[in-house]
């Protein structure tokens, strides 16, 4: 079959010969495979953000704990609100055990609400592990904000900075305005969290809703001298970085509120997750699941994180599957409400 193709170009024939010589990768054991091949981790984000940073911190521990001690390389594929990487992983990525990805936590949510651009079925992915939940916190700058508690925020207008309509920086205040009666005004258009943080210190906006780990890592002076208040967080469970800060779920008064808040909190619980494409060899998946969990629990890795004021609360592949299932099986009523919060036209 390949004869015609070979004749097409001399180059192809040379490479094809190499192909014949090398044995098919899938037939190998995971250990043998990873001792010979590198593990490529794609990120649904750009190289400059926190996703790359976390993988770089984890990198050497993965090499140490995955059987065969594979070399790890990082690749970045931002775009389409994270859907570009998810679509690619589902439809195009090699399924030989050498390629996995860190997807955005909202990919299951996007499928559930039928967001445009979804070309994957979340259920068919294979889940390796998650570093831990990525909880968004509503953080307020005390010096300028007219209100610092939820009760006050129901009476006074607090201005929050946001990157755009479909980002958590907007969804979180919209959710609270709609269901808790707060009066947040959202100013959209900032190019990332950095400019929002600057706008807050400058007094242009009063606060923001976003990743809590980012404050610990990049803006620790926020935590000193009573400069800021963490009002509420969007997570499913309590967060070790925010002891005593209530979850938005705790504020839910009706079953309806609980349902909608729970739907969005499930994404937060998924967090920074490592996912393999459908058709990934089972033995390789098992090897990665084991290797990742061992690496995430390595005391030295934890120490590395601690030095940078970060934490890991590892989530297993099995638990991730459950969280995805919760999101995908949400009732049509919840989906309709979530679509409204997300600004999708019904």
């Amino acid at each position, binding site marked *: 079959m*390949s004869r015609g*193709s070979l004749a097409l170009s001399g*180059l*192809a024939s040379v*490479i*094809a010969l*190499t*192909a014949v010589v*090398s044995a*098919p*990768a899938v037939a190998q054991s995971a250990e043998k495979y990873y001792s010979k091949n590198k593990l490529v981790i794609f990120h649904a984000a750009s*190289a*400059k*953000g926190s996703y*790359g*940073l976390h993988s*770089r911190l984890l*990198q*050497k521990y993965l090499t140490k704990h995955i059987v065969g001690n594979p070399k790890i390389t*990082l*690749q*970045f*594929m931002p*775009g*389409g*609100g994270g859907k*570009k990487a998810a*679509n690619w992983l589902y439809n*195009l990525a*090699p399924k*030989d055990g*050498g390629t996995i990805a860190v997807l955005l936590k909202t990919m299951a949510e996007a499928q559930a609400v039928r967001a*445009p*651009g979804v070309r994957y079925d979340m259920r068919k992915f294979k889940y390796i592990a998650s570093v831990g939940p990525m909880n968004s916190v509503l953080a307020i700058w005390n010096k300028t904000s007219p209100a610092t508690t939820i009760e006050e925020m129901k009476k006074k207008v607090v*201005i929050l900075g946001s*990157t*755009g*309509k*479909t980002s958590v920086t907007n969804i979180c205040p919209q959710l609270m305005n709609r269901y808790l009666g707060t009066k947040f*005004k959202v*100013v*959209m*258009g*900032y*190019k990332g969290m*950095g*400019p929002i*943080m*600057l706008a807050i*210190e400058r007094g*242009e906006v009063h606060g923001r809703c976003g990743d809590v780990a980012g404050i610990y*890592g*990049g*803006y*620790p*002076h926020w935590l000193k001298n009573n400069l800021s208040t963490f009002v509420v967080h969007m997570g499913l469970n309590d967060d070790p970085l925010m002891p005593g800060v209530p979850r938005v779920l705790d504020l839910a008064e009706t079953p309806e509120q609980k349902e909608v808040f729970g739907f969005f909190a499930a994404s937060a619980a998924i967090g920074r997750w490592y996912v393999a494409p459908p058709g990934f060899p089972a033995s390789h998946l098992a090897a990665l699941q084991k290797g990742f969990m061992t690496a995430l629990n390595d005391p030295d890795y934890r120490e590395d994180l601690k*030095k*940078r004021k970060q934490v890991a609360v590892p989530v297993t592949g099995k638990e991730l599957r459950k969280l995805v299932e919760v999101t995908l099986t949400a009732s049509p009523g919840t989906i309709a409400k979530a679509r409204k919060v997300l*600004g*999708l036209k019904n």
Partner: protein
Amino acid sequence: MEGVVDVNMFDMAIKAAGILFEPERLFFLAVGVVLGLIIGVIPGLGGLVGLALLIPFTFDMDTYAALAVMMGLASVTMTGDTITAVLFGIPGTISSAATILDGYPMAKRGEAGRALGAGFTASVLGGLFGAALLFISVPVLRPIVLLVGSPELLAICLFGLSLVAVLSGGAVLQGLAAACIGLLVATTGEDVQTGELRWTFGTLYLWEGIPVVPVALGLFAIPELADLIINRKPISQDSTMDARKGQWQGVRDVFQNKFLMLRCAFIGAGLGSIPGIGGSVIDWVAYGHAARTEKNVENFGRGDVRGVIASESSNNAKEGGALVPTIAFGVPGSASMALLLGAFILHNIVPGPDMLTKRLDVTYTLVWSIAVANILGAGICFMCANQLAKIASVRIGILGPIVLSVVFLGAYQANRDWGDFYLMLGVGLLGWFMKRVGWPRPPMILGFVLGGLIENYMFISVQRYDWDWLYQPAVLVILAVTIYGIVRPLVRGLKRVERPVRRTTFGINPITPDIVFSALIFAVFAAAFYHAGSWEFVAQVVPRAITGAGLVFTSLLLGLQLFYALPTREAERGTDSNEGPVKARIFDITEDFEGLTRQQVRSRALVFAAWCLGILGLIAMIGLLCTAIVFLLVYIRFQSGESWRTTLAVTVPVGILYWGLFDQLIDVHWPYSLVGNLFPILRTELGIF
């Protein structure tokens, strides 16, 4: 007061110098500098790619050495990019786009040495200026950064946009229409206010907007390459000046224009310190400033060394500026600074107020690194400039395909997507036609890079302050300067009215390519205006305002072209040769195709287009890396008719370089090809299919 430093700054600075001037750290700084220069030279690769490449290696390094290698790289990419800009008319990084306007015509005249000399000198002095400014402003960094809010940013961007008027030169309507094209392109992608997907045509590629690198390469590189290949002559045909002598002349030029250099370095460092205003804007603002404030600017855009000085001093000064918000607030001042910030966190350095007090040693190590890297980088470039200048006289049949293949590899670094190729070639076609009909391209790129910012800052300002944003003191000052800059030349022009002898009879002119082009752009604006009506109101405001303005400008232009014979066009009509069309003076490179008939130009342009499409087809079949190499081989041997010996002598080392740099070092994720689909094993084993 916040940010006041009681620690003795100078003691800390000396301590930091002691830290950096250890042999091992200096060695790493030098490594960073060499890498930075290489990355700067290659179009499409900038500080971002370079730093992403370095981060894994710096992980286990001593903190100061890690900072030295990273700052070394980031500080000199804007020195290296001068080389590509001057020699090929292609921006090596996006920050040097304005350098090509004068640097490249100088190289064509045989003054490559002088342009490079001036460019490197302006670079190093600009870089040192940025470092010095950072050094002295440490105590007031935080208060200064806090002064600039979204309304001020909006005013600054509007000021930048007002430079379109200057950059349009004598072709005002064409320039304004080109700026509208740029602004319109910038509205592509998900609208942040409404979530509306504007001009994405169902693709994910366009979802997050259009990346700047393929646009810049398309607008400047592809037309330049096309014309070089059509002309079939070396870039520099007559060497009027010895390269070494020229280089010194360039150095003298900078010192003769030291105030211009200082002003532009100040613009670079100042704008660089504002997050959101990046390298893609700064060089144009500096260039526009020079064109507006200098005397006798009639040669700007045709090889005036002051254009090179303005652009190069500003873009090197910007890295010093960009460090300001990065270290003082943890807010990256540029894309490369975002990665530096990542490295900070990996090395447990916490940006913020502490950097200006307790960790001044780190801050000053960064300052020293910028200074030393700039000197080292310019020194290396000076040493090589003599050899580099000779590249301009290499046969185009060899140089052309090398540069074209690099441009394809570079464009793909934007999003690593097929969309990068389509975008570059599409914009390339537009750029080539713009060049042919005398539409200035700088206003388009300026509109493009400022368009997104202006829309964002406008919505933020209005949402936050309603119309009160207009009354902030700094905003009033900047807007007043902007208006003064626009009105002054008009008033002057009116005062000095010398009525030229013009044909006052109105008639219907014959249809020329100029008219067809204007009509096409008019049609695009009209279609876009109509289409935007289907979106939510907030999402359509800006696109409709832009297309509305575009319709006004193009219809005025069409009216003039159809019914009124512009004196600047008369000479062009009725001749078959391409010799010396008298065009309106525009700040852009022009090409006259001396001695070629229109027929020849047309057929060679079609051959070039066919090669570009051929490259696309080949990429689909055998992948990008193999295509780059196969294309070189085939083009040099068969299109240029070189001997097999020459062909292989060029192709083999260049091919190895491509493989080493892009596949091994940068670890590019190559686009999937037919061969890879047919033989998946090849993809997993070799990675390049």
